[in-house]
């Protein structure tokens, strides 16, 4: 793409190919990638894990791993070639021409050095100023990244800061030497939604103010669409589509981009209205990229020509985008992709009867769960009551540390409650085995949830044996095959160890295992959050299908509001170990709702992209060991009434039928407050402020 290079380019990457050597074998991870970023431009690089995003970033920083080999191409930074540059030049360019913010701020900061010093260092060694001057500059920089008390932060060690604060320090450090290009490599992954929103706000503001160019790397289309001017989509080490953010994310011209967008439940979608459309198949394994179009095997519209050679990235007609698809201009075919994928995945959604009001299968009453460690006691769940009914999906949301998982494990019986009663099933469900066949659980991380030393057949077989006593060996074998089929595993998978399976297949095994005993209740603890979006869609669809088929009750835990909203019949919201709101999904999404729910909603990237107003949390997250008095949320509540909230624990207010929230503000008043725009600056789109359940076309918006 050399013709695109101009004097204005901060970064220009052309025909870059990188491979990793592993055991004397070279594995291509980046193939023939070209793109450039102009001064002041924000460029987003999007793709699923393993597509080569971070490798490109590290190549730009000239900091590839020892076993990485640049096979060809060029990387120019303000016109100077990075590949093969002298160490002294690189040292000079780093920080001043290009700086980076990493995915994991915790490990990217030196644990034995005060953060102020770590920042001041940059001034000391780049501007060659005295330590005093460097410290003064550091203070100014900390003010710029909006620390409430920058002076004290200077003196802190990394471990004394929260994840969000650490990332602010990293951003301050990256911007210290006024780089021409800022690389952000998944800067908010691992942060809570509310914190993520704050960091993104900050980045957005800084980029706007400073005019630094940015290379933004993310798997999250919603974030990219919010921040970037142009977007490149990577698949298996190749750029498959590039163009202005609005175009790529709204009218993609590559089947992969289309597939990605269709995999995500867009804001407001629910399972009863629409089915997610995952991309069939798996991306090629590392080092096994086929000679032709790498996506051909998963593509609904692939032709023989696609297998011959990788299609070039070429302009599409009528738009500014470039696409590496031979049928890039075939808009009608792109629609066909959708249809074919749909057909491949399963039946279209069916509206299901109302599930609320059937008999309770799990009843939690005033449950308390404490943990003690290092001499302090944390109350992870306090006085929590809720009911799960037969056949319903109850979504449980909250930030990390809110007690979601603890509650789930207490319900499952993995933890013994320190107070209150957990009733699972009816009076007949007494023994461990009865309980086991009644309730099962699916965990977040299939890597650790499956015993790595057991083959799939044994993983399922053992569960069949335990949960279906009395079956003969043949019957058990048949049941295993049955279960495998129901979670869409092939027979050949049965003989594999989990290590040989992809993340999605592993999670199917885990789900299959949970279903071997035909349970009534399944607790799903973030079952899809560790997976790439296209795989996540498959898993969510599978869960929906199984639930319908077996009339199951799900307790579905997620930090992702879009997913929870998509899946749940009812939603429960937890904050600091307390249940702050519970009610039918759509009712909870709508005012009046708990101010914390309001904040969560406003922080949801998909919701932001959908135009919700941003409401900011105040103050730091309080410690569970020492929860605030009165309303636990009062220290951060944007709607706090002051004294009352700080001293008196709020009552449960009834907003609607079956919809309750814990607040001092009564429903009508709260509904009025929340219908107004609290922050004019953040509300970019007045029409959508209250448009919480607007249905938009599925291919236009992403989620987080």
């Amino acid at each position, binding site marked *: 793409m050399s013709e695109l290079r101009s004097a204005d380019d901060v970064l220009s990457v052309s025909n870059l190919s990188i491979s990793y050597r592993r055991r004397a074998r070279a594995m291509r991870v980046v193939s023939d990638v070209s793109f450039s970023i102009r001064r002041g431009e924000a460029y987003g690089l999007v793709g699923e894990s393993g597509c080569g995003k971070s490798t490109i970033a590290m190549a730009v920083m000239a900091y590839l791993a020892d076993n990485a080999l640049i096979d060809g191409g060029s990387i120019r930074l303000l016109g100077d070639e990075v590949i093969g540059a002298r160490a002294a030049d690189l040292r000079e360019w780093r920080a001043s021409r290009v700086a980076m913010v990493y995915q994991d701020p915790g490990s990217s900061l030196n644990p034995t050095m005060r953060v102020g010093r770590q920042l001041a260092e940059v001034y000391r060694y780049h501007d060659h100023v005295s330590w005093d001057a460097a410290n003064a500059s550091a203070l100014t920089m900390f003010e710029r990244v909006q620390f409430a008390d920058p002076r004290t932060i200077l003196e802190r060690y990394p471990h004394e800061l929260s994840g969000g604060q650490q990332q602010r320090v990293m951003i301050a450090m990256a911007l210290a030497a006024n780089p021409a290009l800022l690389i952000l490599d998944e800067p908010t992954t691992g942060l809570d939604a509310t914190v993520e929103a704050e960091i993104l706000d900050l980045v957005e503001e800084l980029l706007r103010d400073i005019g630094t160019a940015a290379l933004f790397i993310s798997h999250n289309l919603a974030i990219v669409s919010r921040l970037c001017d142009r977007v490149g989509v990577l698949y298996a080490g190749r750029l498959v589509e590039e163009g202005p953010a609005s175009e790529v994310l709204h009218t993609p011209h590559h089947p992969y981009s289309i597939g990605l967008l269709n995999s995500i439940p867009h804001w407001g979608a629910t399972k009863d209205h629409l089915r997610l459309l995952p991309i069939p198949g798996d991306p090629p394994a590392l080092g096994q990229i086929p000679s032709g179009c790498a996506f051909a095997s998963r593509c609904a519209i692939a032709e023989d020509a696609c297998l011959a050679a990788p299609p070039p990235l070429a302009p599409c007609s009528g738009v500014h985008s470039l696409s590496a698809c031979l049928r890039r201009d075939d808009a009608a075919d792109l629609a066909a992709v959708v249809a074919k994928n749909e057909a491949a995945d399963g039946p279209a959604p069916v509206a299901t009867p109302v599930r609320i009001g059937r008999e309770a299968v799990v009843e939690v009453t005033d449950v308390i769960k404490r943990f003690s460690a290092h001499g302090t006691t944390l109350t992870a769940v306090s006085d929590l009551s809720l009911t799960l009914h037969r056949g319903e999906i109850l979504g449980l949301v909250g930030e990390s540390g809110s007690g979601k998982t603890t509650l789930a494990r207490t319900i499952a019986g993995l933890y013994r409650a320190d107070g209150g009663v957990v009733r699972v099933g009816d009076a007949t469900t007494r023994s*461990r*085995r009865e*309980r*086991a066949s009644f309730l099962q659980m699916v965990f977040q991380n299939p890597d*650790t949830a499956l*015993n790595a*030393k057991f083959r799939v057949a044994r993983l399922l077989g053992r569960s069949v044996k335990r949960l279906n006593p009395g079956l003969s060996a043949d019957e058990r074998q048949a049941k295993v095959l049955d279960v495998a089929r129901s979670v869409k595993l092939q027979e*050949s998978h049965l003989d594999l160890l989990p290590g040989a399976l992809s993340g999605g297949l592993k999670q199917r095994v885990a789900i299959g295992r*949970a279903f071997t005993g035909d349970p009534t209740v399944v607790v799903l603890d973030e079952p899809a959050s560790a997976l790439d979006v296209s795989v996540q869609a498959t898993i969510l669809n599978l869960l929906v299908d199984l639930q319908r088929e077996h009339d199951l009750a799900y307790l579905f835990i997620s930090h992702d509001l879009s997913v929870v909203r998509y899946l749940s019949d009812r939603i429960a919201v937890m904050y600091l170990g307390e249940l702050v709101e519970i009610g039918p999904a759509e009712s909870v999404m709508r005012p009046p709702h708990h101010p914390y729910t309001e904040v969560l909603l406003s922080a949801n990237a998909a919701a932001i992209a959908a135009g919700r107003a941003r409401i900011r949390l105040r103050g730091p997250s309080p410690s569970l060991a020492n929860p605030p008095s009165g309303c636990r949320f009062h220290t951060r509540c944007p709607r706090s009434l002051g004294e009352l909230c700080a001293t008196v624990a709020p009552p449960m207010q009834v907003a609607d039928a079956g919809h309750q929230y814990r607040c001092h503000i009564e429903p009508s008043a709260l509904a009025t407050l929340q219908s107004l725009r609290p922050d004019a600056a953040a509300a970019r789109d007045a029409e959508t402020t209250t448009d919480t359940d607007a249905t938009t076309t599925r291919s236009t918006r992403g989620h987080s």
Partner: protein
Amino acid sequence: MSALELSSRSRLDSRRARARATFGQLLRSASFDVGAVIVVFWIVDAIFWHALVPQDPQALNPLAALQGPTAAHWFGTDWLGRDVFSRTLAGSTSVLEIAPLATLLGIAGGTVVGLVTGYYGGAVDALVMRLVDAFLAFPLVIIAVLVLSLLGTSEITVIVLIGVIFTPVVSRTVRSVVLVERDKEYVASARLRGEGDWYIMTAEILPNVTTPIIVESTVRLGYAIFTAATLSFLSLGIQQPSPDWGLTISLGRQYLQIAPWIVLFPAVALATLVVAVNLVADSIQQVMAQ
């Protein structure tokens, strides 16, 4: 059941393939090769030394005592006129008997203790770990000296002693990995389907901690050889007239100046074995860590 046949074949294949890959990786490591060749040599020697020695290692020849290396006695003769070459070859048996058995004992004991304490945690764990701490506060050799000077020595005593001394060390390693495994969801899921503790410990967790146990075994084996030899040297292990290296070095020390070959060859032999075992252990550790 052709599907089953097929599957069992593919299972075998995949297992073989994995073993091949691991082994192949090991073979590519030069230090492993060197170490393994030496270790295998000494193991073969320990078993078949009868066929290898040119002379009876116990045969006395008082008139030919303390002779330097000659064509008849490649490594010279010792103070009783015995052939040092033959004795050096025969000397590997005792240490290669004691060390693996002691290691096995220590690994078995340590695995059981580590599994139980790591899995159950709580008061038992705290108590056992305090005891382990207390036990580990004594240098290994001191414990050995203490016990052996009290109980007297025999090969069995030495094996049991080293095994017992290793148990807390191994249990710590095993416990630390069990602590990690215990909190993994596959254990939770086993509990959720009502598995008993014993099943979870042995069938679920144990297979997942074999790698550190294997690594620990190889490391322990090196220490066991080291310890057994040191005990022999301190006259607390093997007894005369065994050609055991440590014992020979201890006894031959007084002839160091006039007949250094008596001590030199067993010392070199011991050094090669110990270093070789450690080379192998190190390589295994590295490959396993990947």
